[in-house]
């Protein structure tokens, strides 16, 4: 009986300490998301960094940090954080968001090849993602534009571009077949939105 009296408080203490850490992380992330939604990116950045100190859900927090850095115009840091978030992550939803946002960032930077790869990765995870499909079409459009200037490139590059173009065409056909034909022609590439924060 006396032993039970000692064991129960001990178990309670362990659970309670774990719950505190979990609740602390949640609270910080909620705070950070709220600040992000208000456009207070610097405060949000600080809150996410505080949330990282609990060592819980570090991949999701790193993803949010990447979003904040992107909003602050720090592309390099954003990519670094998204790399950290995707390292060892298995959650398909998280991987999808990371790939999508990377795609948007690469597109903004004019790196259409990388953007194309990222949107394709999104569609591998979630084939019905309309936004990703639309963005992929934009990337393909940009890549096809650059295809016109192939004459000035060397043979190796020409071969790469041709392969990419063929590959791209197949994906484009796939997108059209899968019901995204209702997309308006002036559909803009999607931005990283606050509600895409974890």
């Amino acid at each position, binding site marked *: 009986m006396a032993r039970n009296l000692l064991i129960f408080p001990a178990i309670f203490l362990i659970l309670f300490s774990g719950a505190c850490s979990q609740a602390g992380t949640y609270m910080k992330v909620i705070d950070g998301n709220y600040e992000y939604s208000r456009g207070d990116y*610097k405060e949000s950045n600080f809150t996410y960094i505080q949330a990282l100190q609990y060592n819980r859900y570090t991949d999701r927090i790193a993803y949010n940090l990447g979003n904040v850095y992107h909003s602050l115009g*720090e592309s390099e840091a954003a990519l670094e954080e998204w790399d950290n978030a995707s390292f060892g992550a298995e959650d398909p939803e998280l991987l999808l968001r990371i790939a999508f946002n990377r795609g948007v960032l690469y597109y903004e930077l004019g790196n259409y090849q990388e953007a194309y790869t990222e949107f394709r990765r999104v569609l591998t995870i979630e084939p019905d993602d309309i936004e990703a499909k639309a963005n992929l079409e934009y990337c393909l459009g940009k890549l096809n534009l650059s295809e016109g200037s192939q004459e000035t490139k060397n043979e190796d590059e020409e071969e790469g571009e041709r392969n990419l173009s063929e590959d791209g065409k197949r994906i484009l056909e796939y997108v059209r077949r899968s019901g995204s034909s209702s997309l308006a022609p002036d559909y803009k590439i999607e931005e990283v939105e606050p509600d895409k924060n974890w």
Partner: protein
Amino acid sequence: MRTMKKTPFHFNLQRLSFILLFLAVLTMYAAGDEGVHIDISPNPVGRGDRFGITILADIEDSEMIDINQPDLADGIVLLRGPYIRPVWVETADQGQQRKTEISYLYRCDETGRFEVGSYRIITPRRIFSTDPQLLEVGYYQNRELIIPLEIEWDIQPDIAYVGQNVICILNALEQPDIRLFEESLVESPAEGFFQPAEGVGEIRGYSRGGVELYEIPVGSYIFTPSAVGTSILPRAQVRWENGLAGSRAREIEVRPLPETAKQSGAVGSFRLDAKVDVQDLEVGQNAAVTVRITGTGNLNYLQLPEIIAPSFSLLEKDEESQYTATMQGYRGWRQYTYTLVAESAGPGRILVKGLSAFDPATERVYFSPGDSFPVNISPQLGGPEEELEGSGFPFSPVSYTELSRVSMSLRFSSRIEYLWLLPGPLVFLFFFFSRKRKALLSVMLFVFLSFSPAELATGEIAESLKAAEKAYREGQFLSAESLYDEILALEPDIVDLYYNSALCAYQQGKIGQAVLKIRSALVMKPMDTVYRRFLDYLNSEYGVVTQIDLPFLFHPDFFLLFLTISINMAGFIGVLYLFKRKNSYFIAAMLMFTISIVSGIGMTYAIFSSKGETAVVMMQDSGLYEVKKIPKKNSETDFVLQPGETVKINGGTEDFFFITTSLGQKGWIPLAKVRKVPGIFELSGLAE
């Protein structure tokens, strides 16, 4: 990384044929002047009068044509047309040729010069295009048709910042000839500075409807707005041979400058240079300091940075400038020459503060660093050495004799001090349980004797203090500061030493050190008015904000004293109540007990309100202190801080603090750039 390699361009016959074919087709479609003729009649025409446009085209079959009209100006109204009919026209060889005539009837309700674009006549075999035409619409004055003069303000930019140079050019539009206008009537806007800018603006020629027209600047001005809001550039008038022509008024939106650039008001691209003509001089001799700003922008409006020269007094200040108006604002330089008189002997320093300016092109504030010039002032030959107090600096170190009055001011951090809380309650408890009235006298006597005055600082450090004072008097501020710091390491609870050391740091131009030390002193003696005045002085002299998050006005020892008195009084009055049983004793005892509780709460608050969350930017004399957007070394700089500025630390990472400035700006600053103002716990730890 993939690189692009250039390969030679190969011509072949097939490609050449394609290009020739393309050019042929292009020529056929572009040919507008062959086979078609257009006529506007009458031209010029009076406002509200009718005019016709007649097109004669080499088309035999007038029934198989389609016509595309150009988009005409808003004031032109189509009354009738197109009326298409075949006509016979005599050819050069006395023969006749069948052609097609297309006619329109219009009316124009506005005056001015309008371009009538190309009419496209489409037949199954060919497309004809007419040449664009210029239509002039005027009004009648004394039976003479006059095309009115159109004038307009050209403003660059129309959204400006306070203090920015806005270029305002009054242009005469669509003039068929280059000419001069003798008189223009221009009023200044209600707020701001409005100055003529000769040489700004140029005559611009362009073609409209096949006629060469010119845009001629009548007058050029530079407007420097001084208030936020909407500034109205009033209507201007120009006198010409047919009377007065007026422009419309224009609005200019004026935005506020970022806080960091408000002090200088500088908008543009500038460089700050400073120089001092001497390095070694005697007391009474002059030194000339030249501060010059060179660049393009609002040189007429910006405020030049101040200079700080504690060992000198200002004799005179001359201003010179040489700048001319350009389309980007004023270009050239503006400078102040300060003539200073050396007043106190010893090593000194002349500090020229940096310039924070706003670049409207990038919409960012940048910092042009100032400069610091060491000078060595020797005593006047044959004259007595002057005292430092005469230099105009209103602060002087606390002397050794006054220091001896300074008591330990961290009593709250010593456990022994809390024993003073016990006598009153213990006496009360003793009599409450024993009720021995006879013991009252002996117990009270014991308690009285147990009080003994606290030990004050002894004279162990006297020699060092005297030496420090002497060094300060002789202007050897560096050695005086070192001595005070050495004594502080041994006696960290003598608060005035922080103040003395801060004065030494200030005299050497080390503003960051001075702010840090005086704030440390304020943590220990928050009610000291001299310390607060010195902080205010730094604030006003350097234009840096040092007052952020000042310590709580009352020191914990203040509350500890009240707590000690009130709890003991409560105990002793309680004893009296036990023997006399008077209600007034009971009330007084309860009152004292309540005061003791309030004092206890106050003391706790005072201790925890100073947790060392404030920091002073940098420890060097001058430089650029960049605050980053995110805690990464290679991230963008968001804004810059000045030496001595105080910031609030919200938290941080391994390498950066997340700070808030007094203006509410947030950012990340490297740990090495700031020093935390020690909290009361850290200072009490030093004292122990």
